[in-house]
């Protein structure tokens, strides 16, 4: 049995020390959900009720609203808005906050029996302090009480953003489930839902790729049967429609494409794009190069296609959506790198 004296002995708090604007802060480790460097997480943007842009990161499938202590402490008016190197993820009531941090300075044991804490003069609801000031190593440290980081007004302001951010996460989950279904068995309804959810989540390139494939699918379904030979010029922009037509018609054969790099081939087995090759490159990469080509011509030939060593597994429509999305991303990257003319 533990003796009361030992049992009642208070342990020093283990605190995480971090710096914001050269100020030293610490927070009890029990409150800390994670620490993340900015490069490790992808910030998402949403707008609050006032139209102001708010950022959040997704942590364990939940949105963590990015907050800066300058804003939380009401100093934005006097100091500029700043982007910092890392995030401290803490839970504050219903909110998961990603507090912007300049640097993490390590863990410390803080024994408040030996350090006299001074309550902050900044108070929150019910006249309770935001935290306590203590002196550690000759420097002022503020031991923050995470549940009091947000003022009532800021909390109200963030409510709407949190709702939006939760909506984003829900859509993200739906998109993930939808991707899985589309990968195996794509449908017009599924592609439409994918385009809608992606657009709402700010993935405009994914949305437009899905819409392109959807449009091609609708054109093919309107024609009902593939009439005449499948052939055309790349600059006519009919390749996508014809690849979708192969899928809809569940055709087996080889689409021969003449591109400046040489001859390319796309293999279709019962409507599935099972492989592609161009200039010694195979699989999805080859398909992407063919779809990116602007000059050349193509023609489909019915033939047997071996499917035992297929390099592309997913359903044709989904492969096309993904490839178009990648192309769009790459083009955007090239534009960005090239910079303004």
């Amino acid at each position, binding site marked *: 049995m533990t003796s009361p004296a030992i049992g009642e002995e208070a342990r020093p708090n283990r605190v995480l020390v971090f710096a914001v604007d*050269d100020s030293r802060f610490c927070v009890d480790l029990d409150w800390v959900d994670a620490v993340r460097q900015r490069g490790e997480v992808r910030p998402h943007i949403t707008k609050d009720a006032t139209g102001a842009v708010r950022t959040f990161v997704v942590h364990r499938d939940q949105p963590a609203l990015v907050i800066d202590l*300058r804003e939380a402490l009401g100093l934005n008016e006097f100091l500029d808005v700043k982007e910092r190197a890392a995030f401290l993820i803490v839970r504050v009531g219903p909110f998961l906050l990603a507090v912007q941090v300049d640097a993490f300075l390590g863990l410390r044991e803080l024994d408040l029996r030996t350090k006299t804490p001074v309550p*902050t*003069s900044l108070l929150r609801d019910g006249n309770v302090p935001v935290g306590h*000031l203590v*002196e550690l190593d000759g420097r002022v440290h503020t031991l923050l009480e995470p549940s009091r980081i947000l003022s009532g007004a800021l909390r109200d302001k963030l409510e709407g953003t949190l709702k939006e951010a939760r909506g984003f996460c829900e859509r993200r989950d739906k998109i993930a489930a939808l991707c899985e279904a589309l990968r195996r068995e794509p449908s017009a309804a599924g592609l439409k839902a994918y385009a809608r959810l992606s657009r709402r989540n700010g993935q405009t390139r994914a949305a437009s790729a899905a819409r392109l494939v959807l449009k091609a699918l609708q054109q093919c379904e309107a024609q009902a049967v593939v009439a005449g030979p499948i052939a055309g010029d790349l600059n006519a922009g009919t390749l996508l429609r014809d690849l979708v037509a192969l899928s809809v018609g569940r055709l087996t054969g080889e689409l021969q494409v003449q591109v400046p790099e040489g001859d390319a081939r796309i293999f279709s087995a019962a409507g599935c794009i099972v492989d592609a090759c161009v200039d010694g490159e195979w699989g999805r990469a080859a398909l992407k190069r063919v779809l990116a080509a602007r000059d050349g011509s193509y023609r489909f030939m019915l033939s047997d296609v071996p499917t035992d060593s297929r390099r592309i597994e997913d359903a044709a429509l989904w492969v096309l959506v993904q490839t178009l999305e990648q192309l769009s991303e790459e083009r955007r990257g090239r534009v960005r790198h090239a910079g303004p003319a």
Partner: protein
Amino acid sequence: MEGKPRILGVDDSLTIRRALEIVLKPAGYELELAADGAAAIDMAKAMNPALILLDFILPDMRGTDVCRRLAADPDTAHIPIVLISAKGAEIRQAYRDIGNVVTYITKPFKPQDVTSTVAAVLAEAAGGTLVKLTAPATRGETAPAPVPIAAAPVPPKPARPSFISEPGTARAGSGDAHVQEAKRAAANGHDEVDGADADEAEEAQEAESSLSAAARRELLEWMFEALRASLEGVYVEEIDTPAGAAADQAKTYTDLIEQLSGELDETLRHTRSGARFTLYRDGSLRSLDETLLDVFRRSCRLLFRAVVAGAISGESPPNPRRILVACHHGSRVHEQLQSMLPAHPEWQVFVISSEFRQLPMVVRLYGPTCLLAEVTGRGALWDQLRVVQRMPEARAMTVFGIAEPERLVGLSDGDGPGPLLAERGVTRVYHSAFDLERVLCDGAATDSPPSTAMPALNALSAERCA
């Protein structure tokens, strides 16, 4: 042509007539009102209403007489009547005995009691025959199902709001007088005093005796007095519910106390006048018991909130001198302070000796009453002093500069700080920390910030509360 259903409301009480107006007109009914029995009969013949809401006790005749006369006239016999009355045996008898009385509503009532009853009766009346409705068991029940007249059950007595209190605490004043007056009036052939018959008055006495109103009133008045004394001019902090916050923010506790106190006074005045109901803006009638309880609850909540917020405390906490020192590590000022500070444990001091970009945050969190800053004339500390000066905390803080005379060249104009020091809020510059020690020990300088201190402090307090 199908127009709005026409309803005749008959009640001698202006309050009840007003309540019916508030409830029924927005619900899409055309309402005509009469204040006595004779007028009700005439108007019923003239306007042929779809329904009559009839007070049981009228100045010129009883409600039962009105019902019988309407039933005897072929022009009005088909009109369903809903009796409105406070609880009593006679209304139940009338409901059983008189064919055109289809149901009744008890006072006090909520708006939905009236609208649901009216809707149910009109729906049944549309069938062409009068059908008795089961009486509501308790207030606020949904529309009752119709039953044949012959099988109409005896309606159970509606539940009455009551307070738990010790026996023998009956109020000797207005409650008794009210009952006596009601009994006298009943003996003289008048059934009602201020809208209550003798039966009702007895019930009122019973209710009021259980209220221990005198005790509650005394308690509330004591509480209000205590709150007033403690909370004069204090702003209400942000509170727990959005609705509460919207209602109460930017009010002082005193405002809220005055509001509650006013409501209490009004309720008690109504009680003394013999009235038993309060008409609320939404058209609901509440008994004065409920109103008193409401005031009591809100007072308790206010008191609780004030205590939680720390606005009330037995003793005001000592106001420690919060000193913040900003000087370079290893500077002469820093060395002087190192030797001086241990001699003054009564001071609450934090020192910033490097990375001066933290100054605004530390000022915001620490809220110093006195900032001792090394005057450098350049660098981060010099820049941050100007930022701090823009913060509201600066209005409640005295800034002293410490610098050797050669540092002050171009900064001080001899008699006092020059413009560069002034824009950083430096009120006075000392040449050594030991010079400043005397000022700090004196206390006057740190406890009395510049001339506009009190308004500034109040403004700061208001900003923080907002």
